[in-house]
């Protein structure tokens, strides 16, 4: 458990270092995800303890967004000024992205629409 937690943190650290050194436009943890994925490809399977550690983190992932979301209190003035256009833009754009992506995926993977 601690061993695999160390592996996860090491991937993140390596990701942060590479992103910082090369000035890449992605966040360190996203590169860390790619590194851990590479490790799994080499390994050929997911070790049970790593799977359990990751599942534990991911099952509760929603909780992790609460501190950042609370940051809304710093922007009350700006938000109330442009509340209507900003809300409309978020709602329309998020819906458009979902519908367009899903329909394109269905169109391009014809005949694969099982389940």
């Amino acid at each position: 458990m601690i061993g695999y937690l160390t592996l996860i943190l090491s991937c993140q650290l390596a990701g942060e270092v590479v992103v910082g050194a090369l000035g890449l436009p992605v966040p360190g943890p996203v590169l860390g995800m790619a590194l851990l994925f590479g490790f799994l490809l080499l390994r050929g399977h997911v070790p049970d303890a790593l799977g359990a550690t990751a599942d534990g983190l991911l099952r509760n992932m929603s909780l992790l967004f609460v501190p950042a979301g609370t940051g809304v209190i710093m922007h009350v003035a700006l938000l109330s000024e442009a509340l209507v256009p900003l809300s409309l833009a978020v709602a329309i754009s998020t819906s458009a992205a979902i519908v367009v992506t899903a329909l394109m995926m269905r169109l391009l993977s014809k005949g694969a629409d099982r389940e």
Partner: protein
Amino acid sequence: MNNLAQTWVYLSASPLFHLTLTLAAFQAASLLFEKGRRNPLLNPVLGAVGLVVAVLAATGTDYATYFEGAQFVHFLLGPATVALAIPLYRQWHHVRASWLAIGASLLTGSLAAVASAVAVLWLADSGTTLMATIAPKSVTAPVAMGIAEELGGLPSLTAVLVIVSGIFGAMFGPLLLNLIGVKDWRARGLAIGTASHGIGTARALQVNETAGAFSGLAMGLNAMATALLLPLLWGLFF
């Protein structure tokens, strides 16, 4: 009473209180979500943020003080993002089989997100700063903030819009997908991850592992695609 006041002075300055508040608010919001038969309007992230904001407002606490306690939870976002490699690896055979469809759908969806958000603000005459602030709103927060800064937007407001987009997609995404009749878990996950990054992915993982893996993949790819392409596109228009 005096003791109570002293205890509060001590607690409000230590990280313990706001860390506990964050966990307790999320527990309460999750319980409400379950009791309400997972009604999307009772989204636990939204509920928990609402509860925390109410407590902070009632006690006159500023965000910096709150974050001293909440940072321990916030920190785990990094390791959780890395851990998305595991569901992705478990679903890799699906991804390999349709990588071209995935790439093309992701790029069109990503473009739809940016173009429609900017178009709404342009029609409302909201100004270039707000347009640059909202353009990267479907991308995971740390990347979106970097992009907003590059385009001349307000990064901290971008973070708020990113979170709201995530919650909106987690709440209404499944309903929209049912409405247009897309049942394939791969397409559903890809759509949620493209539009609603980590918050959508967290929700998708609770519903179906294939959807969760595709959502995590879409979140990572959309972050890379938007970070690379949006500044170039932006230069053509503004």
